[in-house]
Structures are given as structure tokens and as C-alpha cells.
């Protein structure tokens, strides 16, 4: 018990899991019995979740949003990797720099220009999500590239590798696991933007649109139910990314502090 409050301690797995279960239980009790009823009660949320699944196609909407999100993150990842790797050439560094600064742009207004550039509502939706995710991904990916040390590059050069080969070995192959981590961390951005884009182009539906409607009619039990579904999806998605990292990059965890 004492070790749960000791800095850098490594409690046994069973103790740690018990602690997590206890914390979740306390949270649940708070939700059930807190006198100030900020949130709809648990029963209402579950009933609303059932009704959303049965009557409003929550699963289909989730699937629609999920495929849009996956499509966007895949394209954004390719674009961001390309922009980040091109920073090896000084000519492209200003582009990457500008891309990282575009994080500060608000999407309102930008969607109009995107609508002018592409033909369908689906493409506008995708391009907004891709833009939003790419600027964050480039920021994370260029930071990873900047962690490359002189020692790492010198090591590759002493093995007679050309500058491009050294870059490929040290930066592209050597940091691929960290790039996956950047994608995992920034995938959340897509989910925060999805409500905005799905309300702009409502024809394809999506969980974001469903959330917007529940919120608009003050169905707070529905809002909480959908938020919990998004939270669970995000957690599952994080778990899948961690799993992928463990499978494809088994070396990636070896040097981590325990």
C-alpha cells in the first residue's frame, strides 16, 4: 500500500490493478450518489445508450465516423511523414516550419476555401480533417527527427553509408516506432474535429452529428452516452496502437524506465 505513494515505485501488478478498480468504483459511487446532480444518472445514460443503438443507429454512425477518421489519419500520416522527412533538405525546411505553425489556425473559414478546392461534401470533410491532423503530426514528427544526435549520424557515416542511406537508417528506420507514437497521440485531434465537420456536411451522418443533435435538444443523457462511446473507442484505438508498436517494434520499450 505504501508503495502506491512512493515516487518511482513499481507496485505488483495485482496491487496496481486493484487500485485502478477501486478508483473506478469510487468514481462510479460519486456519479451515483453525489448530491449535486451535474450529470444525468447512470440508469438514464444506459437507457439512452440503448435507445441510440436501437433507434438512431449509433453503431452505424460510429462506423461511418471511424472510417472517415481512419481514412483521414492514414492520408495525414503519409503527408506528414513526407513533409517531415523532406526537412533533411534545407529547401523544404520552411514548408515544415510553416506547417507546424498552422496549428494555430482556426478551421472556421478555412472550410469555405476547401469547399472551393474540392468537389464533394465528403472530400471537404476529409480535407478539413487531413489538414487539421497533418499540422499536428508534422509538429510531432519534426520534433522526433530533431532528437537525432550527432553520435547517431556519425555512427552510420563511419560504416560508409552515404548521407541519404545514413538518414534512412538512423531517422527513417531508427525512429519509425516514435513516429507511430506521434500518430497515436495525435489521432485524438481527429475525434475532436469530427463533430465540427460532420455538422457542416450532414448528408453522411456520423457520431459527431448524432452528438450535435443530442446536444441541440438538450438530451444530456444521450450526450454523455455518446461521449462515453467516443471515449471507449479512443481508449481501444490507443490500445491497438500500443499493440502494433509492441508487435512491429519490439525494441521500442527496452530502454524505457521501469
Amino acid at each position, binding site marked *: 500500500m505504501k508503495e502506491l505513494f512512493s515516487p518511482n515505485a513499481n507496485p505488483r501488478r495485482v496491487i496496481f490493478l486493484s487500485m485502478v478498480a477501486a478508483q473506478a468504483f469510487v468514481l462510479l459511487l460519486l456519479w451515483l450518489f453525489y448530491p449535486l446532480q451535474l450529470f444525468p444518472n447512470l440508469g438514464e445514460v444506459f437507457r439512452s445508450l440503448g435507445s441510440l443503438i436501437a433507434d438512431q443507429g449509433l453503431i452505424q454512425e460510429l462506423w461511418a465516423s471511424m472510417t472517415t477518421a481512419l481514412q483521414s489519419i492514414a492520408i495525414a500520416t503519409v503527408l506528414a511523414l513526407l513533409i517531415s522527412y523532406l526537412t533533411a533538405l534545407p529547401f523544404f525546411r520552411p514548408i515544415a516550419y510553416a506547417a507546424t505553425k498552422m496549428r494555430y489556425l482556426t478551421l472556421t473559414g478555412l472550410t469555405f476555401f476547401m469547399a472551393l478546392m474540392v468537389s464533394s461534401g465528403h472530400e471537404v470533410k476529409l480535407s478539413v480533417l487531413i489538414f487539421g491532423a497533418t499540422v499536428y503530426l508534422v509538429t510531432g514528427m519534426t520534433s522526433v527527427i530533431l532528437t537525432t544526435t550527432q*553520435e547517431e549520424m556519425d555512427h552510420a557515416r*563511419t560504416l560508409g553509408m552515404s548521407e541519404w542511406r545514413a538518414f534512412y537508417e538512423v531517422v527513417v528506420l531508427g525512429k519509425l516506432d516514435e513516429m507511430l507514437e506521434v500518430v497515436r497521440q495525435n489521432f485524438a485531434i481527429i475525434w475532436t474535429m469530427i463533430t465540427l465537420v460532420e455538422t457542416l456536411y450532414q448528408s453522411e451522418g456520423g457520431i459527431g452529428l448524432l452528438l450535435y443533435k443530442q446536444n441541440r435538444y438538450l438530451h444530456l443523457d444521450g450526450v454523455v452516452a455518446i461521449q462515453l462511446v467516443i471515449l471507449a473507442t479512443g481508449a481501444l484505438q490507443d490500445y491497438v496502437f500500443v499493440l502494433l508498436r509492441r508487435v512491429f517494434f519490439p525494441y521500442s520499450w527496452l530502454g524505457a524506465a521501469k
Partner: protein
Amino acid sequence: MTPYFYKEPVLTLDNISMSFGGELVLRDISAQVLDVVRPNMKQGQVVGFYGRSGIGKSVLCRIMAGLVAPSKGTVQVGVEQEPVKPGAVGFVQQRYPLFNHRTLVDNLLVAAERKYNPEEARQQVESYLERFCLTPHRKKYPAHLSGGQRQRAAIAQQLLCSDHLILLDEPFSGLDIAMIDEVKKIIVEVTTMDELNTVIIVSHDIVTTTALADRLWLLGYERDAAGNLLPGATINQQHQYNLAEMGLAWHPNVEAEPEFAQFVEEIKEEIRQS
């Protein structure tokens, strides 16, 4: 005294100077490593560069390895005495870097593929794994190797792709007595692998470096006529020692000899005075 004679140069530092942001770090360094031949002996050689901490040894290493061009002067390597390029000299850096995303065997293969075709590369790697006692660890990632295994792997990797010259930056730094003995064994092992192999040790460990080397250069600062310290570390004429000529090279337990102890004391005194 062991009979020996010198042949052609294998490394020449000609008037090397290096400045960073107007600050002179190295000044007019000249040294030449000659291929030493000992009749009836098929063994390469070890030479040493000694310098105090922070004097610019690592900069000198990067210059010798062709990783950075000096502000002035040239470095020539090999029997043909060609200007040094990255990859011409095997260079084991202080922290023994390896590719952390590759297993040990892959780390060695990626180095061997530079000189050999895939089948030969595989055979060479197997032979190095065996020779450096690394076979049981072949599938491990660098993060799973001990310091000693990592050092052996880094040396093997450089040997697999370089042409006889191998440069070790501070190979004894932070090691205990047992590990130092282990590294000394590896260095001797490297010299016995090919009579053309030359190991260049750049270190601040004067005793171990002197015990292994047959030539020694001391990096230090000079003073002008008024006694003021001149900027930039250099190697002056008095600080170049031919240990073979002095009868202090190639003895199995040279550190126990009184002549060796006396020589080391003299060097230490030189260092203190500089």
C-alpha cells in the same frame, strides 16, 4: 629488444588545426603512424594519443575518422595515403553506438554488406560473432546487451566494414579493472586478426594506453617565451614517443616493469607541467 622495422605510413596528420566560432581548439598537429613489421610475427599494432579531459580529443577523433574537415591541414589514410573520407577509418565512439532498431546480428550484417556479397557477409558475421564471444546474444537488441558486449559488438561492426584502421575514442573510460582487462584483450585480439590492422587509441588513461601502444603522442598546450599559454592543444616534438625504440612495447606484462613505471611517472610530470 624485439626486432622491428617500419614500412609505409598508414595514417598521416599534416598540420591539423581546428577552430570553432573563432576559438582555436587544436593547433598544428602533425603525426604519422607507420606500418610496423616484426619478423616472424603476424600481428598489427596499437598506437595511442593521450590528452587530458576536455582538450579536444573527440574533435581530433572526428577529424581522423573523416567526419569533420579540419580548419587547416589534411588527414591521409591507407597505404595509398588518400584523403580520409567517412567510412575509411573504423571509429568506435565513446558510448559504443549501435542501431537500436536492429538485432546484434543485423547490426553486423548491415556493416558487412558494404564490403562483402550477402553470402560472404553472413559468413564474416558468423565468424566475428564467434571470435568476439557474441554468438549467444545474436538475436538480442542493443538495449539488452551489457556494456562489454556492446563494446565488442561496436568494435566488430567497425572491423567488418573498415580497411584495417580502427579508432577507439576513450575505450577505457568509466570501466572497472576487470572490464579494462577485457577491453585490452579485445584490442590485442583485433591486432592479431590481420597484421595490417592498426588500432588507434585516443584516451586520457595514460597507464593503459601506454601499456598497449608502441607509439604514443601527447596532446597538450604550449607556452610562449613569456610563459603565457598558447591557444589550441598541439603535439610538440618532445611529446612523441616511440615505445618500441624505448623497449617498452610488446611485453605481455609491461605495467609490472620498473622502466614502464618510471616512464609513466615522467609523462605524468610532463602533463602536470603543461
